[in-house]
């Protein structure tokens, strides 16, 4: 704790020193960033939108896309995990698709989709594949013994999936969700920089980059980082609660 605190202090001292001695006017010091933070939080940006509003709008977009990604990734992942022949059939489609980063979909999404749907689609691209792949991996790791055990108690396929395969895959699924949410959060910034809406943390950054007021750009960056951190922490907390049964719990 003490070490963590001192490393944060050292980080800010370094930042201050670099800002002080940098010849560039575009590296604001921590204090001016703090001032910009308070201004944007209380007064709002050049168009009158406050930092909270930017963050809420970005979060809303990410959570919607995340919900769609989860609602599609988990069932499809379960299906493909259970049916290896089907998985074999769709692998030639899924494998190349998953290496196309969400950012590469942006131009297409601008031409084909409108407003919120564009964000939902881009976040979905980022969330879907980690959730899908981790769900498949989780299903594959399900112990055969447990399945046979359930069968000897007369379980049908539906019961096996709901009572054995799904709970047994949950740790992997949650891992996929955590990674997916992280990726989604990173995509939103890129998506907002290009889309048209005036609100969103990505847009805030771009607005002030355009105005060459870098202190606010850094305010946006820090907000994005902090919210990403908080989201990750929330899922980890949830995992810890859900997986008390696990011997090892990731810190």
């Amino acid at each position: 704790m003490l070490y963590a605190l001192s490393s944060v202090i050292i980080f800010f001292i370094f930042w201050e020193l670099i800002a002080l001695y940098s010849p560039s006017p575009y590296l604001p010091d921590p204090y001016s960033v703090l001032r910009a933070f308070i201004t944007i939080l209380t007064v709002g940006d050049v168009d009158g939108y406050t930092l909270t509003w930017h963050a809420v709008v970005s979060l809303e977009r990410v959570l919607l896309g995340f919900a769609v990604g989860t609602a599609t990734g988990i069932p499809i992942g379960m299906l493909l995990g259970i049916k290896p022949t089907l998985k074999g059939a769709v692998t030639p489609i899924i494998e190349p698709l998953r290496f196309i980063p969400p950012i590469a979909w942006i131009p297409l999404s601008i031409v084909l989709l409108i407003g919120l749907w564009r964000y939902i689609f881009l976040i979905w691209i980022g969330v879907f594949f980690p959730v899908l792949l981790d769900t498949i991996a989780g299903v594959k790791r399900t112990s055969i013994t447990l399945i046979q055990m359930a069968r000897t108690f007369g379980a049908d396929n539906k019961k096996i999936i709901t009572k054995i395969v799904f709970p047994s895959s949950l740790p992997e699924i949650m891992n996929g969700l955590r990674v997916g949410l992280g990726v989604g959060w990173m995509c939103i910034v890129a998506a907002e920089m290009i889309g048209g809406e005036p609100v969103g943390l990505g847009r805030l950054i771009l607005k002030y980059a355009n105005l060459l007021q870098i202190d606010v750009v850094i305010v946006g960056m820090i907000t994005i980082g902090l919210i990403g951190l908080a989201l990750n922490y929330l899922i980890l907390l949830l995992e810890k609660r859900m997986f008390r049964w696990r011997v090892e719990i990731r810190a």
Partner: protein
Amino acid sequence: MKKAILLESVSKKYEVGSSSLEVIKDLTFDVNENEFVCIVGPSGCGKTTLLRIVSGLEPPSSGRVLVFDTPPDPRRQKFGVIFQEDSLLPWRTVLGNVKFGLELQGYKETEHEKIARTYIELVGLQGFENYYPHQISGGMKKRVAIARALAINPDLILMDEPFADLDAQTRSLMQRELLNVWSKLNKTVLFITHNVEEAVFLAQRVFVLTKRPSKVKQIINIDLPYPRARLSPPFISYRERILTAFHEELEGI
């Protein structure tokens, strides 16, 4: 006497690529109701396959299998199967695991808790209801599996080398407790093991299987009262008889 299990000329072949592997060939035996039967045989002789056939998880390639006069079907009959491997659900507590069979067998939800607690007590695990499997010992896990199997009041208990992974002390303790439970509940038990002493200690009859493809080599009645003393001369002589038959098969491999 009513037959709990009846096998007539049962064979099982697996197709592996173009060749086929015959695991069981022309196997015939029966088990009486409430009887305790042990099956011993060299490893790889198809003991586990046999158990899967008796519990209805797999059909035989040929021959007839009857459990209480019908082909085995876990969806209509109640089997209590105890596996060699750990078969507890790691995400459920001891109580949750014992409830598992009850949930699948369509017991009323209000009864689950009471029945589960009864059987947890029967296997001596009261106080551990809320522990997760990773928090308890191997022997305790086996007790949970046994409680789970017994809780549904099974027609037949099938055990596949359940104590193989336990240390010697725990193993003999578990054997005594199993006999205890069996005498209380009067169930038919088919117990698979490769441990001859275990078979003599537990069973009323011991079936020695041949090496693959398996059939019954010898059936030995153990006419000893329970509880049995492992060092008594008749116990040792039974053990030697079975070991001899067993070793003939081992050498043949």
